[in-house]
Each structure stands twice: as C-alpha cells, then as structure tokens.
C-alpha cells in the first residue's frame, strides 16, 4: 500500500475535523481507494487513455447534434468542438465567454449595465443607407439619428472613431461623408467596409451579449465573441471565475497552467454535454501532454504525434518521406524506446510484461556466443560454476563500493549505450 500524498492527507484531516468523524477510519478508506485507483508500474496508460477518449468520440459521430442553442447563442458542441480542442485550433469556430459579476453587481439592472458596456458598437449598427460617389471618390453614409440618440452618441463625436489613414471625415446633417485623400484607397467598396467596421464603443470582438441568472453563481453574461484581456479589466466583472472557450486566449492572458485547466474543463464539458462520460484523469493526461512543452501543442502531425522521439514511429504515422529524408540528412539515432518501433521490428515492446530488462542466467546456462569458442575447454557444467563464481565476485566488488572497477563488468548495461538496441535477441549459430 502506498502512502497518501501530503495534499490528499491534509484534505482528509480537514474533512475529519470538520465533520467530526474518526480520522484513522476515513484515512484507511481513502488510502484503499487511492491505491485502487493507482496505475501499476509500466502499465500502458497512454494507450488506455487514448482508447477511453476515442470511445465517446465514436459515439458522438453516430448521433450528431453538433449545435445547441443556449438562450439564443449557438455554440459549437459535440465532435467538432472536441476535435477543435484536441487539435489546438487557434480560433474556435464560435468563440464565447461566460462572464461572472462581482458581489456588488448582483442585480439585473447592474448586470444589464455591464452587458451594455461590454457589447461592441460599430458604426455599421447605425448606418441605414450608403452611397458610393465614384466621381468625387466620396462615401456617404446615412445614419439612424434616433438610434444614435438612444445610445447617447452624437454624430460629431463619431468622427474621431473612424481611424483610417489618409481619409477625411466630415459630417453633414445625418450623413457621414468619407473622402479618400490618396489614390491608395481607390477601392471604395473596401474602404466603405473598413469605415463601417469602425469600433465606437464596448469591448472589441464581443458581438452578442445575453444576461441570465444562475442559482449558484448569480448573474451571468454569456457572449458571442471573446476578448478575455479586455473583459477582465471591465469594472464589475469577477476576474477570478470569468472564462472564455478560446484556449489560446487563456494561454496568452493567464499562461500555460490556465490553458491546461481550460483544455480539461472544455473537453470534459463537451463530452458530458452529450451525455457521455470519461474519467477526468485521462483528459488531464492528454492536457498535460498537450501543454508539456510550455506552449499548447495539438494532437496530430504538427503536434504531439509529430514530435515523437522515434523516427520509425513518426514514419509509420504520417508524412513518411519527410521523416526519412530528415533522418537520413541529420543521421538520427532511434533509441527504440517506444512501442510502435518495436512492433515494426517485431521485438518485445517495453510496456507491461515486456518492460523489464533484467536478464537472469541460471547455473549451467551459458551465453550463446561463447559456446562454439570454448568448445574444448572445461566441460559445460564446470564453466557454469565458473560463471557463477565470476558473478559472485562482481557482486562482492559492487557491495564493497568500488565503482572504478565496474567497467570490467561483462554484463551488458542498458545505461551504457542508449543508442543501442537492448531488446535485440541473439540467435545461436552452429
């Protein structure tokens, strides 16, 4: 039985104290559960994790409802979302945020206020008519003055939000007139689009906001589009639990550890949303693998699978030619430590029962290659005894702690030459 880690032990102690139960009894139970959940040494946990994660994925392909509308917002779900997470896509198909509010903002009015403040307002939202004057190279945009008033904006003040180089902006009545100063902007359609997209107010990227109330967590603002960095700065937002579904954004703002957690949470959420279940440890193993380099790496050709140590394993996966060429040019040595390469060469894989390198020789058993060489020397039995004596000598030297003489050891050691194949079995030859 293995001892519990310090953190778990502390938690158990706290629990026992709080609930006034017998500590040793609880500890014993937790210890048993902990030991039952442990992996055995050299168990192929990666393969088991992969199988455990791909089983729900096959289920998902069979019943496909990839989208679900939560209060009007359409978010990618199901298999496409899972693939998005595992492949570490830079931008999710539907970026969204879940914004939680501070204690003093827990009223509907205040939540709405924050939501209004967050929502991005563009010039496009007020435009009711546009004219492109090709003769004078002028764009005229007619604005909805009433709507402008509702938002508390004045047409004059809009001018400074249109930040495009070499362009003159004037206002006349309810019209915004954009004049191109340079011939560069001769593509007026493009320019018009640029002008319309001008950011006026709110947080960039947040195109939709929906306010709802959760029994546990109070008022929530769900958004379409995400901008974690800016949102966290907004007054009233609880920065501790506010999240977004863009893992790369979390990585940029909060770092790898946060990104790792985001991967775990997002993956488990999408799987559980479909009514399926995975042990979170498998997901966390995958997330560890994806973030172990310090940045986010997808599973796939350009990520985890493409960064395997073994050339043979990478060749067997994808882009065979590419890997042969680089291996040949750089003279790469394959340590043959993984299971794929050993299956290719029909060797015992270093997993499970095949993980152990110990070679035992019984008295009377002789090294295969020595057999023909010492044919006419001492009879086999005696040589066996010799061998045992020799080994005894070596062991006695070891125990006497004389490391300098270790090199005389005839036994092969796996640490000596890592590039060599430890699993190669020699065969007898007559």
């Amino acid at each position, binding site marked *: 039985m293995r001892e519990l880690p310090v953190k778990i032990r502390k938690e158990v102690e706290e629990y026992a104290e709080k609930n006034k139960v017998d500590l040793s009894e609880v500890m014993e139970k937790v210890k048993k559960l902990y030991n039952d959940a442990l992996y*055995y040494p*050299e*168990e*192929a946990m990666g*393969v*088991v994790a*992969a*199988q455990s994660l791909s089983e729900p994925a096959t289920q998902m392909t069979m019943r496909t409802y990839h989208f679900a509308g939560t209060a009007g917002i359409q978010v990618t779900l199901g298999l496409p979302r899972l693939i998005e997470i595992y492949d570490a896509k830079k931008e999710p198909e539907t970026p969204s945020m879940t914004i939680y509010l501070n204690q003093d903002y827990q009223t509907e009015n205040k939540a709405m206020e924050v939501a209004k403040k967050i929502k991005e307002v563009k010039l496009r939202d007020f435009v009711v008519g546009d004219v492109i004057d090709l003769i004078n190279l002028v764009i005229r945009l007619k604005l909805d003055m009433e709507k402008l008033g509702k938002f508390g904006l004045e047409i004059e003040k809009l001018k400074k939000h249109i930040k495009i180089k070499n362009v003159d902006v004037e206002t006349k009545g309810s019209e915004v007139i954009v004049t191109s100063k340079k011939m560069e902007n001769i593509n007026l359609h493009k320019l018009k689009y640029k002008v319309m997209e001008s950011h006026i107010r709110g947080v960039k990227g947040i195109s939709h906001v929906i306010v709802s109330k959760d029994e546990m967590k109070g008022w929530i603002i769900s958004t379409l589009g995400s901008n974690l960095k800016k949102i966290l700065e907004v007054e009233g937002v609880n920065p501790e639990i506010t999240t977004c579904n863009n893992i790369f954004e979390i990585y940029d703002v909060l770092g790898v550890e946060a990104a790792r957690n985001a991967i775990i949470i997002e993956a488990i959420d999408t799987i559980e949303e479909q009514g399926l279940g995975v042990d979170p440890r498998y997901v966390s193993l995958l997330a560890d693998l994806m973030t172990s380099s310090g940045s986010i790496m997808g599973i796939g050709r350009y990520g985890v699978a493409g960064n395997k140590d073994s050339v043979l394993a990478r060749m067997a996966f994808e882009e065979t030619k590419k890997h*042969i060429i680089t*291996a*040949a040019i750089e003279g790469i*040595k394959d340590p043959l430590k993984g*299971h794929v390469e050993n*299956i*290719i*060469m*029909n*060797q*015992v*894989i*270093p*997993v*499970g*029962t*095949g*993980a152990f390198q110990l*070679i035992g020789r019984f008295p009377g058993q002789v*090294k*295969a*290659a020595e057999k023909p060489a010492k044919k006419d020397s001492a009879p086999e039995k005696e040589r066996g005894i010799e061998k045992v004596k020799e080994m005894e000598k070596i062991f006695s030297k070891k125990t006497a702690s004389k490391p300098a003489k270790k090199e005389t050891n005839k036994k*092969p050691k796996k640490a000596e*030459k890592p*590039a*060599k*194949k*430890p699993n*190669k*079995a*020699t*065969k*007898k*030859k*007559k």
Partner: protein
Amino acid sequence: MKAPKEKVDVYFNGNFIGSVPNADKFIADIKKRRRHNILPDQINVAYNQSFSEIRINSDSGRARRPLIVVEAGKPRLTSDLVKKLETGKITWTYLLKHGIIEYLDAEEEENAYISIDPASVTKEHTHLELNPILVLGISASLTPYSEYNRGDRVNYGAKMVGQAIGAPVDNFLIRADTKFNILAYPQRPLVRTKTDDILSLHPYGQNVVIAIMCWDGFNMNDAVVLNKSSVERGMFRSFYFRTYETFKKRYWGGQEDRISIPEPGIKGYRGDEAYKDLAEDGIINIETPVQSDSILVGKTSPLRFLTGGDFTMDIENKRESSITVRHGEKGVVDKVLISETTNGEQLLKIRIRDQRIPELGDKFATRHGQKGVTALVVPHEDMPFTKDGVVPDVVFNPHGIPSRMTVSQLIEVLAGKCSAYSGKIVDGSTFSGTKEDEIRKEMLKMGFRDDGKETLYDGRTGKAYQVMIFTGITYYMKLDHMVADKIHARSKGPVTLLTRQPTEGRSKRGGLRLGEMEQQCLVGHGAAMTLKERFNSDETVIPICQNCGLIAVHDKTKNKTHCLVCKDSKVLWVNTSYAFKLTLDEFKSMGVYPKLVVEEI
C-alpha cells in the same frame, strides 16, 4: 424566374424547336391529340415552370408506366369497360387508343396529380393508379400485408427477396453461368400478392409450418430452429452450380496448350494421384465427385519467352497449368461442354454441381424483413406437436416481433394457416388484400381458434406447454448466404512473396488480420509477449554486421557468415520480421543507410 406572360421555350427530344405564347393551352392540345390517337401515344410532354420550358419527348430509353386518365374528377375507366375487358370484347390497346389509359414518363409524371385509389379521386386529380400496390417496386410488393408494417421492415424484406434462392430461370440445365443457385422444390406462396401472380413461374421459397416460440434458447437472437426430418424430406434443398472455363491457347511461334494428362516430370507436376479422375483425353468424366483443388482439365502450357532456333519441344519446356476446383468448393461434375472460341481455339466449360442441404449457419428469411441463421436442427420426434400431429418445420423466436413490429408476418401466419386448411389461396396484396377479420371468420367457420393459437406438446416429454403457441404457415426463403461458402480457418498456410506475411482472403487460404485496434488493445493490457507472438507470422533471422550495421551474407556451402562491406567483422544473428528486413532494403534502395546497432546479450 421569367414573367408568366412571356413566351415559353419548347424542346423536342432535347433540341430547341421554338416557343409558344400560351403554354397551358399548347400542352393541353398535345395531350388531347395524343388521347384521340392523332399523335402517337409514345409522346410525353412536360412543363417545367421554373425554367419556362416545355419538353416533348418521343425518343427511346424512357421508363414509362400506365395510368388511368381522370377527367373532371371521374376516371375514364368505368366498370362497363372493365367488364368488356374481362369478357374479351376490348383489349388493352383499345384503352390506350381511346385515351382511357396512358403511359407517362418520369418528366410528365412531375406535372401529374395521381390518386392512388378510386375512392379519393377529386377534381384536381389528373390520373388514377391502376392498383395502389404500384406505389411499391417489384420486390417490395411481394411482401403481403406490408401496409401494416413500419417502412424500414418492408425495405429490408424487399432487399432479402432479392437474395432468395428460388427458380429464376427454367433453362438452367443447358446454361453455363459462372455461379448459379436453384431451389430443389420451389413453392408458390399460399398468401400471395398481385405481383406473385405475375411471377408465378419463378417462386423464391417454400411454405413452412412455423411455431412462434422459444426452443431452449437455441433460437435466441433471431436464430431459427429447423426440423431435421423436414430438411431430410427436401425442405430448402438447393443446388449450386459453378462453371469453370479454359481454352487451348495458341502462343507465338506455333506453340499451343495441350489438353491431356500431364506427363510426370514437367514443371509443377502434381503427382499421379491428382490426375486419376481424368479421362484419356485429359478432361474429367461427368458425375465424378470432385473435392476442393481437384483437377478438372489436365493442361500443359509451353514456357513463355523462349526464343532461338535450337530449342526442343520436350517436357523440359512445359509447364503444368491444369484447371482446378476453387479452394473450399466441392461437388459433382455436372456437364462438360466442348466448343470453339471465335479464334478457333478449343473451348472447354466444366460445370460443377453441389447439393446444398440446409445446415447450421445457413440464412433464412421471411418476406417481412425477419432474417435468421440456423442454430439447431432438431429431430422430428423432439419437435413440438399439436393434437392433430402437426409438427413445425421452423421454430421462430417471439422476441423478434415486438421491437420490429412486423404485424404483416403475424397476419401472414394466420392467413397461411387458413389457406392450408381451407384450400383457398389468400390474396395478401398491399392495400387490397383479404382483411384480417375475414380470415378470422373463416377460421372460426372451420372450427379453429381465430387467433391462430394452439396447444403444443413438447416432443421430448410429451407434456403440453403451459401457454398456447401461435402456429401457422409462412412463406420462408433460403438466402444466398450459406456457411459452405463462408467457413474459413487457418493455422499454417500460404504467404505473400513480398512481405512473407499471410495471404488475405478465404479463397487464398488467408489469415485473419490482427488489426491496429486489436494491437492497441494488447498494448493496453500490457501483454507484450502475446503481442510479439501474434505479430511474428513473418519472423526471420537475419545476420547483422556489428561493425557497419548492415545485413551480412551467409554462405551455406561453406557455412560461414561474413559482411560484404567490412572484411573481418563480427556478425550477429538478429530476430525480426521479414517486413522490417524489407523496409531496410527499401531504405537502401533510396540511398539511405540504415545502420543497426546490435550487441550481444
């Protein structure tokens, strides 16, 4: 879309011929003329409104079907006309010429509004279906009472009707099909549809007595239990024919194949025993039993690519190329045909016949999408029986019914029973078949229970079953999936030349592949030794030079191993797969140096 008042283009057989201002009038005019036999009845006209096109077709290759013309809400085919038709006063052509019935093609059908039965004809309808069963295809319309079923079951049933072994042709004894199956004692169904009357000469199954009950769990999961005596009496016995073909090929340089018993000593000679069934002319005799890989025609071919003047035509230059029975097949030589090819070469066709008696693993199905595999063949005396001594031929598991909801099968069992006792054929046509009530009344009239249930007695104990069992007669089909064609196992066997891995497929005595996912499963269990053992089908021992890491050479005559690159280096024998050795060779052929670092342990 174009404005409606604009002219509409007219296409005749795909070619533009002009345009008309009033499309509807134009089309009506054509149809009127066709119905009055002024225009040929093969002409079809279709109006595509979204394209503003009228398409008139008279060419060949269009699938057309007959429909009753409806005018002003009344079908033109009246009961008077039907009577005249029955008495032979008028013919089908008469109806066609007088515009009572017309053929529509796929395009004109788009403009038609077809009522499927006379009762629901309204003023909007343009046509009436001859019979409502026509909404189904040939196979689907063979299922009786299919209107009681869920759509998918009708679909499955229709699909399996196509796989049934029956009597598709009558001239099979003089045909030489590569593969052909025929049922020994085909029967027409007792419960028929209108399509069955048309297919009357080509039945596709047999009427069997069915008991819907469990049989010690042997018929679980859709399996069926057969009566051994019924099987021995010839139930679902079928014959399988395969024709082998060869011809005496002429080669360049005046050489040709020789059809005779090959002489001993030629290349590929199979031994005297293999040729013992061949007649003097080298062709097997009729009615000779043959096994898998038996020789049917002894043939020798000249070795190819031999040129030059002074070569002799002796046995040294001959190769054995006999025709053998396919691996895994057996039978009796049924017929030998000797003919000539168009090039004047002798052509030989040998037809093998094999009797197929139902056995464990053969597939059977009803017409309702209820398929199953034989799981047990029970002796007659152990089968359940009724008080009248009726013993079922097939025991079908009731668990197959509730979830699939094949109500039609239940009706067929009752209708079949009614038909057998009354001696009257029951019409079970979809939509218009004899109704269940009538069958029940008929059963009551004959003194039977109207629900088809009977007390059955266990053949082994003689005790009555505690519940009544639904028994009756159903039309069953033997499907073209028999174990004899599929059974396969291998321990040792042939390997492919390139990789030395086992061949693939039953016909090549191949192995069953342990795939990538199965491999991962073994890895997941940590069963490293099992995994290695499973994958060493192409295990080899290769000599590797310890110095350069390349494959060394073994001289068998001198019994010495040496490296061709390094002179006096140590060579170690390494166990790997042949496929890996091949990979190393491929690396070398690409100019990549694959150095294996080996050491002794």
